[in-house]
């Protein structure tokens, strides 16, 4: 193709027709109205159906109108943008409705009394009682798992990234991969067969914490590894070239540079294990009483509590289950916010 034909194809001016800013909103409103209309006419009653029809209309409408007015390239751009928006909404709707539903049903019995009392003297079908024993158990079990898994996981990741060469590193990576895929019930069975059946220990919060550790470890290793890999090699070399030993370089330069990301990873790992139910049912059993000693006897925990209340049935139990679920979500949400805060606070500083 010669230059002449190329320039011929270009429009004479750099300015093209543009649709106004409110165009996407207008199309969205129009397609929703049309979607509802079509569904009403066709007698569809599910809101999912009319939502999908509206989404399809939105994408098609955007392409049609923009293609007419602005040209094909802009139309494609708008379609991709609108597809991203549709995908985003599809992802957000279940999440938002889940939070909405939990808050709506959860606040009914969630109060100071509920958070500070156990179920010790309350029958499942009666109102009253609380989740203190479950909060205590969850905090202790997750706390123990974190205390074990974070140092081991972070050190493993440091080994893999900073020192690991050859067979041992490959083997460790392989086992971490395998561990990532372990279903929680299998982790529970593993602890059951070793800790309880072979070593003869009883059910306890600690046994549950061991299973949680197994689930948490690979997540911590993986996320820490990724964060350490992001640290530019130049920083390591700069430190080594100053005559700083390798271990100090890692401790004072590499880890501080990535501490924000590592913290976020740890928090996400904690969030992941906080909702585990199966291994706890198997290893910690259940109790309605406060047991502050994680090393002996059954303990409560939030996920197991929710499960038990829901299976007990009855209005009072349902209310308690929802309130406990809300507490659990709030706990994880707070952890995530804390992680973000720490990540921002510790992030490498810029600006003057």
């Amino acid at each position: 193709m010669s230059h002449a034909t190329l320039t011929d194809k270009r429009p004479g001016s750099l300015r093209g027709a543009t649709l106004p800013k409110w165009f996407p909103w207008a199309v969205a409103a129009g397609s929703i109205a049309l979607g509802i209309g079509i569904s009403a006419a066709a007698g569809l009653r599910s809101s999912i159906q009319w939502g999908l029809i509206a989404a399809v209309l939105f994408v098609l409408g955007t392409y049609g109108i923009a293609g007419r007015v602005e040209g094909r390239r802009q139309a494609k751009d708008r379609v991709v943008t609108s597809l991203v928006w549709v995908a985003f909404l599809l992802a957000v709707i279940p999440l938002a409705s889940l939070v909405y539903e939990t808050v709506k049903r959860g606040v009914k019995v969630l109060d100071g009394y509920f958070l500070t009392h156990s179920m010790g003297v309350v029958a499942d079908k009666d109102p009253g009682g609380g989740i203190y024993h479950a909060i205590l158990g969850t905090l202790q079990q997750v706390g123990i798992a974190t205390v074990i898994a974070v140092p081991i996981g972070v050190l493993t990741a440091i080994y893999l990234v900073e020192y690991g060469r050859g067979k041992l590193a490959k083997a460790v990576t392989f086992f971490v991969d395998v561990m990532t895929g372990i279903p929680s019930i299998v982790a529970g069975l593993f602890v059951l067969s070793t800790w309880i059946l072979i070593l003869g220990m009883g059910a306890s919060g600690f046994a549950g914490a061991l299973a949680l550790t197994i689930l948490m470890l690979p997540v911590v290793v993986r996320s820490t590894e990724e964060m350490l890999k992001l640290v530019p090699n130049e920083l390591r070399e700069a430190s080594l070239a100053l005559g700083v030993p390798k271990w100090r370089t890692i401790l004072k330069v590499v880890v501080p540079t990535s501490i924000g990301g590592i913290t976020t990873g740890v928090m996400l790992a904690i969030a992941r294990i906080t909702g585990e139910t199966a291994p706890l049912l198997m290893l910690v059993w259940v109790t309605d009483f406060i047991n502050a000693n994680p090393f002996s006897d059954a303990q409560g925990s939030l996920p197991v509590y929710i499960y038990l209340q829901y299976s007990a049935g009855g209005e009072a139990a349902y209310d308690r289950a929802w309130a406990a679920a809300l507490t659990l979500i709030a706990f994880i949400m707070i952890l995530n916010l804390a992680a973000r805060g720490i990540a921002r606070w510790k992030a490498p500083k810029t600006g003057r």
Partner: protein
Amino acid sequence: MAKRIDVSGLNAYYGSFLAIEDISMSIEPRTVTAFIGPSGCGKSTFLRTLNRMHEVTPGGRVEGKVMLGDENLYGAGIDPVSVRREVGMVFQRPNPFPTMSVYDNVAAGLKLNGNFKKSELDDIVERSLKGANLWNEVKDRLNKPGSGLSGGQQQRLCIARAIAVEPNVLLMDEPCSALDPISTLAIEDLIGELKERFTIVIVTHNMQQAARVSDRTAFFNLAAVGQPGKLIEMDETERIFSNPSVQATEDYISGRFG
């Protein structure tokens, strides 16, 4: 404090790839030596063998002898960490530690290595920043992050960081290649001042720079891609640029190739 460097029969490998072969040279104390040569001929590799940074690269391996004063850097029982305290390095791209302030960057080598009193550290930081011609620009923002400085300031910060630990030798790998002419000039002036205290080795692609700052110049070349780089000749800078004894050097300097 500056010491003489004597290299003899030095080979450096990346895995099984021989990057530089049979290099021998002497570098006098308190001089500036420039390394020039086409890209890929092994200037950086050779430079990094002078403070045992080459072996930090996976697969990096060195044969031969590098004498610093009367000690062989590759002799038995030599601790690479102590070598690097004697032979400092400034890299091509400025690389201040992003989590540290200007002050902590300069003090990093000392702080990470031992215990210094705050007043001692203050002195050393001020002296090093003045030595790197940066003090006036940063004295009001010592506690601000080092990555908030301009590129040229960051590079001078890295020089301050390197001279704060009082090495014998300062290696610089294209220290000005990311900088504007004014910052480059500032660093060239700085090199002139630093050579009164340190032995300086600088890699550069800029002939004028080599001519301006160095006392002696070494020209490296490689026969072909995949062949090891070699030292072609080394002489007084003036001679290399006016009347080199090898044809390849003249061709390279006059821009006939490379």
